[in-house]
């Protein structure tokens, strides 16, 4: 495994997170922020898996799995709240 390749990947993910955070801060409505949070969640899941590879710990994959589950529940809870069902 080439370490410079991982530097490249981490740079691309950092730029993605910065763009998502821009929309998360600026977004005119609540739904814009929720969509930005959804995209950021996917990027963060990939980043957690990348951290698991770089530190060579199999157990860190559980963190990514639980993070994905909780993020899904969060988005659905925001949607139900906007719809007026919560």
């Amino acid at each position: 495994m080439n370490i410079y390749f991982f530097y490249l990947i981490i740079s691309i993910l950092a730029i993605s997170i910065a763009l998502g955070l821009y929309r998360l801060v600026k977004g005119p409505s609540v739904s814009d922020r929720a969509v930005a949070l959804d995209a950021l969640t996917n990027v963060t899941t990939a980043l957690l898996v990348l951290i698991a590879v770089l530190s060579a710990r199999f157990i860190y994959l559980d963190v990514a799995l639980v993070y994905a589950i909780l993020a899904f529940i969060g988005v659905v809870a925001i949607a139900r709240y906007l719809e007026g069902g919560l």
Partner: protein
Amino acid sequence: MIEELLDYIGMFFVLIGSLFFLFGTIGLVRMPDLYNRMQASTKTTTLGVLSFLVGIGLMELSWLIKLLIIAFFVVLTAPIGASALARASYKHGIKLWKKSVVDKYKEGKND
């Protein structure tokens, strides 16, 4: 030999996945209204997670099963969350962009 080949294929998949993340978040910043942003970001980041996790799994072959479980879960749940969010924000009263030409949800309600 075969290990090295799988390593390079995995690197290719990881690069494709992270570029999908980059394009999805660029769409999130550049698109004009909520529904276009959702269209741009949700699909691309879902495909990005899939490609990224498969690439990592080809690099570390013993992790492949668990990574496929995570990828399956993300691919299963991301469209559900996005659909619920789009429907809820339509009912919440968020308008379409003024240059949008078709509103199937409203047409369906008039029938």
